[in-house]
């Protein structure tokens, strides 16, 4: 089934010069392998066509269940040179979460009945 990335992840984005970074974080640990499989550099480059004019790099951060993307040449020159409203790519986080991806229907099954993994203190 096709679902929007918004259902599987949250994100934060920022800038370094003309490069935007988007950190994509799985909402649940078990969603992380799906992100790794589906949200490839090729998919991201295609998703951001018209916005990202350079290459896309991806880094895996398995301990945080997160992926970090660098979208080069994506901010109209970046920082103070850029004419864009969002010259720092602050809203690219949710632009990423618009992506539609394929998941097995079992992935989103309600697991609220399961014993919660909370640590007592």
């Amino acid at each position: 089934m096709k679902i929007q990335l918004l259902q599987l992840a949250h994100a934060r984005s920022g800038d370094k010069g003309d490069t935007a970074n988007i950190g994509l974080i799985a909402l649940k640990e078990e969603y992380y392998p799906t992100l790794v499989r589906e949200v490839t550099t090729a998919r991201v480059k295609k998703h951001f066509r018209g916005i990202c004019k350079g290459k896309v790099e991806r880094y895996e951060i398995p301990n945080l269940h997160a992926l970090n993307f660098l979208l080069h040449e994506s901010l109209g020159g970046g920082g103070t040179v850029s004419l864009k409203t969002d010259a720092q790519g602050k809203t690219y986080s949710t632009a990423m979460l618009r992506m539609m991806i394929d998941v097995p229907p079992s992935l989103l099954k309600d697991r609220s009945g399961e014993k919660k993994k909370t640590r007592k203190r």
Partner: protein
Amino acid sequence: MKTIRIGCGQGFWGDWPEAPRRLVEDGPLDYLVMDYLAEITMSILQKQKARDPKLGYAKDFVVVAEQILRTCIEKGIRIIANAGGVNPRACAEAVRAVAEKMALGPQTRIGIVSGDDIVPRLEEFLGRGIELPNMETRESMRSIRSRVQSANVYFGAWPIVEALRQGANIIITGRCTDTGLSLAPMIHEFGWHEEDWNLLAAGTIAGHTVECGAQCTGGNSLSQWERVPNLAEVGYPIIEAGEDGSFVITKHKGSGGRVDVPTVKEQLVYEMGDPREYITPDVVADFTTIYLEQEGRDRVRFSGIQGRPATAFYKVSVSYTAGWKAVGTLVYAWPQAFEKARAADRILRTRLKNLGLNFEEALTEFLGVDACHGPLSGTPDPQIPEVQWRFGVRSQIRDDVERFSRELVPLVLNGPPTVTGFAGGRPKVEEVIAYWPALIPKSEVQPVVELL
């Protein structure tokens, strides 16, 4: 195990004026750190200093100092801020004057960290073959030499540590990494060494987590943002640092906001490059080694962090002038708001073309339609109540940008109907400041630490 509490009261120059006072008054704290410098800030401060040698620092910090100095001295809280900009000594003198006025002179020991401003040394560097090549294009800095506005080395934690060792209880620095502000008290209090790479990496990641203020305590948090409690009184972050390099990110009891694994993770990935190589002057930190654990309400524990040896270079940020720009907006109302805005855009582009003006870029955005997400935004509602049309130009020729600024507003009378939002008048022509990132061998620059 010995622990200390370090709060971050300012994530950027312009952050919440209430935050520093609340951090020092509303609960236990040992250190207050504040970040004031963005890249754009240094060039603005250089201009101010050129006009008046007594200026060139973050004046807001002096106002904050007046609010918190008495409490900090009474409670023994030390303050570390990179508010010195391009004139840390002038900033220190202004704070000294405040302390004297409050009759706190004898108890106030101000440390100054400088030596980061390398504008006076650029000729010398170039003469000796230190070309400061652009980290992205490899081009020599010579190509922008005549247009340089500011040039600063990013120092790390060690000069601040030196000021703490000398007994300063307020430390004012010039350009210094955000992470170094928080790492320095840990090094000082726990006696960490220059090659304790794992410990330095832990302190650096702690610093990165709090360096944007409330952005790790529920501010700007995408994760269940509607349920973040009491953002009106959001608590700014506190590092509860342990001498073994483990630490907890938390906030004062009773303050608003939320510290949980999702809010902290969002800040960890902010402005990230390669997660295994977070390079600072102090260490190379590895974000793939962080282990996070929610250990209580509004308490996230970090452990397991590893680092590798620091590089032999400091980062340098050079700012230089790079032409002119102007941006203007008009608002079009229902019906056919988007169609009217698009028609206005076509008319303006024709007029600019007829004038033969020369722009590197002329950008159109429609706020309410596509300004943030561009082509991903989808088709707007045909009944959209209003659209803000935003048009910006950039050019090396100032006159062409000036001419543009006279072409936008006439459209309220000679373009499509039901238009408003021009009260600001003509778009303001601004000089473009661009940045040149470079590296310099650490042996070429020495931080200067002194007490005032």
